[in-house]
Every structure is written in C-alpha cells, then in structure tokens.
C-alpha cells in the first residue's frame, strides 16, 4: 500500500458530484438473438472518469471485500491518472485472471459492497470490477500482456489436476517459482466451468483461451483427455510427481428425485450448458452436437447457473422461458446484474413455486411440469426463510424442455479410488483452508472440490495459497 498517494485529494466535492459511469451493453432485443457478450466494457475515455469517483479513503474498506485482497485504491488511482499499464500490473500482482474476475466476480457482494462511497445515500460504489475488466481488455488489445517471469528450474514436478480457475492459478504460481507443472484435464479443452459452464455471452471463450496460452508459454504442460482416478490414480501420479494439486471442481449435477425426471427433454444445467458452450450446439449443424429445439423452457433454480441456462435457452430460439424458484425474489442467489438482464431479456420469473413431478407423452418426452405454490415460513439454518408448500395448489405448466439447475456436488472419481484422502459427508475433500493440505502426504486440494460450489475468485485464492504451501513442501519436505 506504500505506493499509494498518502494525501486525500482536495477536490472531494467534485468527486462526489461525478456521476457513476455507465457501461454500454447490447440491447436486450438484439442480444437474445446472438451469443456475443452482453456488456461491452468501458470506453477508454470513460474509465478514468469512473476512477475519479474514488475518494481515496484513509482506511479503504474495498480491499477487505476482495477475497484475494487486491490493492484496489492503488490501481484505481493509476487509472485516474491514465496509467493503465501501471494499473493492470498492480492488479496482476495479486490476481492472475483479471479479465475473468472483472466479468464474473459477484462484486456487488464483495469489493463494491463495502466501498465507502457506495454507503452514501444515492451514490453507487466505484465500479471496481468493471475497471478491472477494462484494464485487462486494454492490456490484451494493446498486445501488452507479459508472460510472467519464472524462477530458474527447481527440478521439482507437480501435477495439477483440473484446469478450472483453481488449477490454472495454482499452475501459474508454481511455474513462476520454477517448478515443472503438468495440468491434467478430463475434458478436451482446458478452463473448467469457465469453458463448459459460463456462457459465451458472459465470458467469451477467447479470454479463457488467452489465459491458457500464457500458461503454455510459461512452460506449463497441459494434457487434456486425462481423467485422474481412471487414466491414472493419485498414487500413480505421486510416483512421477513430487506433489499433486486437486482442483477438480464440483461437477456432479443434482436432480430433485421427483417422478418423471428422466423423461426426454429434461437436462441438468451442466449438460445443457456443456452442449451449448463446450460442444457449441448453438452452431448445429456446423458443429455436430445437438441440443433440444425448444419452444417452452422451464429452468428450475435461482442461482447464476439457472440464469445462464434461461438466457441460453432464449438465445437458442425458445419462445418462452420461465424460471421456477421456490423462494421469493430477494432470496435469488444469482448476481443482481444477471437477474436484471434475464428480466430485460424476457425470462418469466415464477417465484414461490416448486416442481413436484413431470408429465410426458407416449414418446417419453416431457410435456408439462406440475408445481406447487410456496409460502415463506420461519428462517432455516441458512438464515433464509424456509419455503413451505401451499396445500392443494398443484398446477401444470406446459413445457417441452426443462433444465434442472439446483446445484452441483463433488464428483467422486478421484476420491473413490483414493480412500486415504479424507472427505466430508457430502464427498467434499477436507483440506486445510490456509494451505490446501489434505490428509494424504503430497496431495493438496482447493476450489469447489473443497468448498462446494462457490466462486471463481475463491477457487483462484485457494489455488494460490495451495501453490505457496506446495512450494514450501517441495523446499522443506516437511508435511
């Protein structure tokens, strides 16, 4: 923080008067006909104006709101001065994937939630995430992305399993420290949820590709089509590598276990999104993988995954997309921004409803979902009011496609053949929060496989702290 200008600026009034800058985006009617990114990013001349809204707090609360503790004021001040290169380098000291976090971090619950001017009546917080995104895009478009320097080779080898944000970050930090890193990925493309789950219109795949390219140029080997637990076990890996990091994510889709759930036309969100994102079903028949041609789609759930599925269904040409969620609007766990966009695009929110069974035709295709109306009762363990079904409120909603987006659990492929790795009841791996050590010597874990489905930035943070502790383990050999 020492590089930050110590004195509070004298033009506070002027700063307060500066309006929060708008980020241009594609119009709703236009964007539902394409898969291009919705928000277009700050224009170059707008970014410093937005940065000017920062009041240079003596005690900048924003930093505490960022799970990886980016020195937010420092980079914002550099943007204000027009030193974009300095600003992006500042961010990259702590966050190696700013183009991604600037887009998908739930900023309104993190850094921007605690930004001081956001606390003032009628004032929005500094658009920290949007500035971060702006800088990362600017750096890339100017061809200024630097390949991080790597320390001289240590001769130690580490296998990083999974190429989501946890694995990518861990690999990057280990390579910087001079270790030889191999990423092993089950799918044919690296990126984890960033490529198979989060849609193109929220996170263009070219951005993930560019980040992966940086890793390759740092000398990280990326081997796709390698399923740890089947192609090789963790014990096999430990014969060849000095340490193993498990960043295998939460990739096991939950279903509700209600009658008719295996009818044709009912998908898990993972399948629906994988077909469209990873396999490019939106490009069928130019790409080979099909997805349902739907008219009426219902998405069950209320998180980011549900919003992504609903908005994807619209873009694939569905006439009507509704979202069925058992609580009320305030409890929707998705990012506010995404809920708003989904509404603008025409997604119908069926709040306080819950599916109880599916109805199908003679070909076994889903034709309707039967729902119950819900009321909110007493708060449950999560502090949210518990939804209670209203007796006799059964009603049918006509559908031809359903996407179940009620959450994901840990995939047991690795742990079922590695019993020495301790897991919790639901199957998540037990790892020390501070350093990612598991109960098996030489094996570390982090990201969704440890925390359960969480966020990109938390997975990155876990990858980073695991890298630090792997480094220490490789140096000292103590467990």
């Amino acid at each position, binding site marked *: 923080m020492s590089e930050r200008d110590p004195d509070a600026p004298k033009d506070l009034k002027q700063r307060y008067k500066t309006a929060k800058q708008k980020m241009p985006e594609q119009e709703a009617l236009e964007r539902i006909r394409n898969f291009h990114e919705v928000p277009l990013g700050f224009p170059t001349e707008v970014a410093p104006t937005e940065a000017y809204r920062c009041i240079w707090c003596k005690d900048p609360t924003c930093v505490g709101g960022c799970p990886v503790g980016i020195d937010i004021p420092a980079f914002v001040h550099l943007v204000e001065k027009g030193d974009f290169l300095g600003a992006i380098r500042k961010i990259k000291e702590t966050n190696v994937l700013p183009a991604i976090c600037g887009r998908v971090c739930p900023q309104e619950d993190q850094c921007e939630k605690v930004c001081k001017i956001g606390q003032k009546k009628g004032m929005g917080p500094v658009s920290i995430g949007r500035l971060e995104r702006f800088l990362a895009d600017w750096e890339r478009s100017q061809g200024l992305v630097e390949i991080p320097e790597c320390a001289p*080779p240590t*001769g130690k*080898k580490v*296998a990083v399993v999974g190429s989501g944000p946890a694995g990518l970050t861990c690999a990057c930090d280990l390579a910087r420290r001079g270790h*030889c*890193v*191999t990423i*092993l990925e*089950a*799918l*044919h493309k690296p990126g984890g949820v960033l490529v*198979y789950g989060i849609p193109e219109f929220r996170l263009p795949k070219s951005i993930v590709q560019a980040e992966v390219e940086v890793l*390759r140029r740092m*000398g*990280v*080997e*990326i*081997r*796709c*089509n*390698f*399923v740890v637990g*089947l*192609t*090789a076990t963790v014990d*096999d*890996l430990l014969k*060849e590598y000095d340490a193993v990091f498990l960043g295998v994510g939460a*990739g*096991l*889709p939950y*279903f509700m*276990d209600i009658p008719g*759930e*295996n009818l*044709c*036309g009912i*998908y*898990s969100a*993972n*399948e629906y999104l*994988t*077909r469209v994102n990873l*396999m*490019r079903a939106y*490009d*069928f*028949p*130019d790409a*080979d*993988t*099909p997805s*349902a*041609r739907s008219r009426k789609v219902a998405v069950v759930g209320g998180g980011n995954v549900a919003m992504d599925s609903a908005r994807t269904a619209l873009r694939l040409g569905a006439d009507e997309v509704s979202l069925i969620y058992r609580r009320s609007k305030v409890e929707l766990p998705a990012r506010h921004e995404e809920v708003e966009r989904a509404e603008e695009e025409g997604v119908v929110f069926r709040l306080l409803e819950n599916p109880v069974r599916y109805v199908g035709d003679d*070909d*076994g*295709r889903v034709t309707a979902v039967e729902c119950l109306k819900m009321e909110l009762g007493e708060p449950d363990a999560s502090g949210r009011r518990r939804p209670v079904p209203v007796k006799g409120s059964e009603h049918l909603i006509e559908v031809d496609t359903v996407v179940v987006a009620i959450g994901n659990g840990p*995939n*047991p*492929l690795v742990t079922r053949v590695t019993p020495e790795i301790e897991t919790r009841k639901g199957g998540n791996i037990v790892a020390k929060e501070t350093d990612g050590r598991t109960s098996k010597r030489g094996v570390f874990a982090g990201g969704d496989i440890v925390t359960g489905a969480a966020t990109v930035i938390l997975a990155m943070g876990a990858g980073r702290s695991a890298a630090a502790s792997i480094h220490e383990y490789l140096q000292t050999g103590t467990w």
Partner: protein
Amino acid sequence: MGTSTTEGRSPSCADLPATSGGFTIVEKQELAPKVTRYVVRAPDVARTRRAGQFVIVRVRDGGERIPLTIADADAAKGTITLVVQEVGKTTAWMASLEQGEALADVVGPLGRPTHIEKWGTVVCIGGGIGIAPSHPIVQAMRAAGNRVVAILGARTKDLLIMEDEMRRAADEVLVCTDDGSYGRKALVTGVLETFVAEHGKPDLVVAIGPPIMMKFVCKTTAPHSIPTVVSLNPVMVDGTGMCGGCRVTVGGKTKFVCVDGPEFDGHSVDFDEMMRRSRFYAAQEKESFDRWRKARGEDGGGP
C-alpha cells in the same frame, strides 16, 4: 505420466509438447460392411484399461464426443482396438479417416470394469456390433476359470464379426443369424432358450448388443432367475459423471451409466425409458448425417 517416460521426454518441462494428442490410427480394417476395426495409439488408456471399459472419441474439432468400447488393448505397443459400426455422421466420419491419420481426442478408460469372478458357466451373448465389446469379457471370464459359452448373433452372414477371435477365446461358440444365412436361423434368445433346455441354467449371462436384444435376453432369463448383466449404451457427453445425460433408471433409482456402469443387472433396467432417451435427437442426427453425405457427394436421403 506414462507418455513422458515412454516417449523419453526430458524431465525439464520447457521442451514438452503442449498437449498429449497423437491418437493415430495405426491400423484400420473392414470387418463387415460398415463395420471397421481400428487400432489407435492411446498409451495411457492401453496401460490401465480393463474388460468392460470404454473411451470417448472426438474425430475432429467441432465433432461430437462418442463413446466406444475398448475391444482389446496392447499395453506394450500403447494401442487400443475399437470396433465401430457406421450408423451416423460421427461413425461415418471416423470411417473416412485413413490409416496414419489421428483422432482429435481419445479419453479413457471410462466406466467401471466388468466384475470378473468365478461363477461356473458363463454365457456371453454378443449381438451385431456387441460382439466386439463381449470379446474382452469372454477372455477375462475364461481367465478367471469360468466355462464360457459365447452366443453370437447377426442379421446376416456378412455382418457377423470376430468369429475366429471368439472361437479362440471361448470354450464354445454358438452362432445364429436372423435370416439363416449362417449358423442357426434364430435370434440369440432362441439359442439361449435351447442352451438352457439342453444344458441347464448357466450361472451368469452377459448380454451386449442393441437395447432391444438386451431387453429380450433379460425377459428370457428372468423366469429362470439367471443373473444377467447388460452393458448399456445411452447418449453420452462427457463420460465422467458431470452431465447426467446418460442417466437410466435401474431398480427404480437413477444411475449415470458412464460412472456407475456401463454394466448393470439387466433385470432391473428400464429399457423402454433408455430406448426413448436414445431416440431423442433422431431428427437432428439425420439432418447432420444427410448434410455430411451430401457434402461428400453421396445420396443424402439414405435409409
């Protein structure tokens, strides 16, 4: 892992190639009309695969991921054998590749291996293309000390594959064709009935073939209470348990075939549901195949 040592890569990481790749077709042979045997370089898979497991293949970028059973493997040579029937675009596209060309992706071995133990007498039924995946199971069951009887069924003589291999692997081979052009004129279920009538109940039946065949094998064995294992083939995407597209109902419970199977107790499987799910994309599959054939100057209409 494996590849780095078998290929003598240096342990310093900078000079490693970026991806594993290199799934070259080292051998290609037509076994019957529209049925091709491929020997593909996939050392990691060859090293660890066991009977009953499969791989997922992508022919080229933009292509679909399709599951194919590992019919054989040679760990020393680092190759696996696939026997594939052309039924649509992806399988026909694969057949258009020449020896020496490479597949974009091969991942595996996926699924749980066949449960091999000494049962006594095991009847392995292979129908059509299902003969290929039965072969490693026959070998493994025999190696475990079972008496293995193989029943091979095909629509017609030309479509019968791997008879010689099966004769080498099994204690006894019974052949039937739908049209009687070779072996007995019967369905595999008829041959099975006769076998049971003449020799008594086998201790286990393993059936691999079209879903409809497996369904009727189970209908045949159920009244005799003969334990029956089937290998299911629903539509898959990832093959690692991530998507749930391959789910089937077994004993009233939902199972993911790619990780819980592909083999299940046939008497508990809801075959009708699985067959309906398999047909779900029929219109798009046809569109895709027709378009591909047209682009190659073949008749797009097709049967």
